[in-house]
């Protein structure tokens, strides 16, 4: 395979309920890279994250997404997950009555089965769990509860990173993982993410603020405004945004 790109987004247009949210996104991501996607509220950052994960309710009106050589848009959300795509949710959903451990085991085994690996039994799974939960500094008591139910904001985000550590995705998308986190939780989450950085793995960090990027240092920064990538650069772009805000970007986008 001559194409070494992990993810290639070309001219992506997306509408939700008739509203044009993404208006021609182009993005190329190589294995091992960390890309930050920044932008003001309503710029389409979260829409992009959800479209990559396969959420229903978005109309792809134009463009294409290729992931490891295949047309990503043809895959159901669970197929994408099994192919190595992971979305860390901005608002992890509480699932009453579904035990967190059962859920995590189901997810791990769904992926293992897909890869042709033997499924883990309860013992092996707990073994794996013990090593991973240390990585993210999550309280083990939370494993016995229903998924995310009654978790604090920080605990929910740690549970997301725990899932990421268990599922070992090739492409991880962190959707505003920093929102609602205090500095300690933010550092713990960032540390969990950094330990997963590897030459085979790519990470997309969607964030409004530069804060998280102090801890997860990106290779590339893209700024979204009005559904388009209006500027790309290295990490200094993020620092610049931190000082200047998004006003100048939005003006440039409007004039373009």
């Amino acid at each position, binding site marked *: 395979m001559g194409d070494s790109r992990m993810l290639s987004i070309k001219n992506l247009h997306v509408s939700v309920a008739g509203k044009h949210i993404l208006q021609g996104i182009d993005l190329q991501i190589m294995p091992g890279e960390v890309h930050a996607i920044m932008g003001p509220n309503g710029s389409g950052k979260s829409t992009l994250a959800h479209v990559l994960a396969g959420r229903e309710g978005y109309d792809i009106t134009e463009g294409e997404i290729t992931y490891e050589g295949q047309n990503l848009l043809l895959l159901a959300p*669970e197929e*994408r*997950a099994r192919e190595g795509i992971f979305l860390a*949710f901005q608002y992890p959903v509480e*699932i*009453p009555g579904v035990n967190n451990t*059962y859920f995590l085991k*189901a997810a791990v085994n769904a992926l293992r089965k897909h890869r042709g690996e033997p499924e883990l039994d309860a013992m092996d799974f707990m073994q794996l769990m013990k090593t991973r939960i240390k990585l993210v500094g999550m309280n083990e008591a939370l494993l016995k509860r229903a998924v995310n139910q009654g978790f604090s904001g920080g605990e929910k985000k740690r549970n997301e990173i725990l899932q990421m550590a268990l599922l070992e995705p090739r492409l991880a998308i962190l959707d505003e993982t920093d929102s609602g986190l205090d500095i300690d939780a933010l550092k713990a989450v960032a540390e969990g993410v950094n330990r997963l950085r590897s030459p085979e793995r790519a990470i997309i960090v969607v964030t409004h603020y530069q804060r998280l990027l102090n801890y997860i240092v990106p290779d590339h920064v893209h700024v979204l405004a009005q559904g388009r990538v209006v500027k790309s650069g290295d990490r200094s772009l993020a620092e610049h945004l931190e000082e200047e805000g998004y006003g100048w970007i939005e003006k440039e986008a409007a004039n373009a």
Partner: protein
Amino acid sequence: MTIAAAQLDHYRRELSALGAQLPGSGLTWVEKTRQGAFERFAQMGFPSARDENWKYTRVTPIEKRAFRSMPKSCIGLIPEDLERFFFAALPCHRLVFVNGQYTPQLSEPGALPGRATVCSLTKALADNPDRLEPYLARYADADANGFTALNTAFMGDGAVLYLPRDTVLEHPVHLLFVATTQEELFVNPRNLIVAEQGSEATVIESYVSLGGNGYFTNALTEVVVGDNAEVTHYKLQQEHLSAFHIATLQVQQRRNSRFTSHSISFGGSLVRNDINAVLDAEGAQCTLNGLYLGAGRQHVDYHTRIDHTKPLGTSREHYRGILSGRARGVFSGLTQVHAGAQKTDASQSNDNLLLSRDAEVDTKPQLEIYADDVKCSHGATVGQLDDDMIFYLRARGIEAQAARGLLTYGFAQDVIDRMHLAAVRTAVEEVLLGQLPDTDAIKGLVS
């Protein structure tokens, strides 16, 4: 009058044909009770939709059949035939009733501590009628509706559990009601549980079918919970999908008594449960939990009523329903706080999950409060599986069907988790996994 003359004649003939074979025959007070109840049945007939309490539940399919009792059941069952309905990991005092008859060869009542007794209604009325007289048919109102009247007229074998003062049963009493395949069969199980002051017991009623063909169970259980006594009652109804099941649980609570009911309804084509608790002295605590499943064209109706008549009572009620296909659910929960029942603390909730467009539920939580210093709340919800939850699970590699199965199971789990007996929880979970839509895909995950 809502009963056809031919129907009434049919039941009158049935009753006189059974005559001496019914429990307590020859006892004047029992025969008077039966006669009086039959006259009430003759006057009332079966409930009609004009009756507010039966507005959503038409009993025409029961009304138009001519059900028959089977006084002499010829049953070749052995305990192994029923093993799947026992709780393997849980020792129980077990009484088995087949087609309305107590069946000693399938039962293992075992020994109860002290002077506590458990036996069939027939035996209890033969051995010690005086002990029963103050209780039997004193709490359940034969006038409540045609079905309670009919049960009282036909009172057949169920169990009588009597717990003298301060007796604590270590093991639960398991009452297993089995119907075999006879068509138009009509059974009227009558149970009485009397827990004297300071006693404690758990009773499990199971209603099951071996095959089954449109038979009719019309059950009634009376429970008297004495001062400081505690009774936990489980009911698992998993009858054939063609069966009719009507039942009343009537509870009378004395001072500082505690009563808990877990009522699970899985089977039956037309199911109605009335659960009535009267907190008739200070400091009584009552908990009513329930779960009903309806699929296909099943109709399942729960009517609960909690009467707080004295101060300092507490009641907690938590019911959930899962309906798919063209099933219909009904929940009506009335909590009434009578004048003078100050410091009552009552809460009630009913949540329903509709899994198909054609499934329906009518839910009616009601609080009636005639005291001014009380804490009461109630709420009801009707909803579908949450798209955000489904997407979350799918985004972790779990396929859509398994995601729906997990969520449905999780919804039911909320009720199951409230049951203290692990063996009963496991049994219920197994039935759930066999019966809920989309749970095939999750069997390996949750058990």
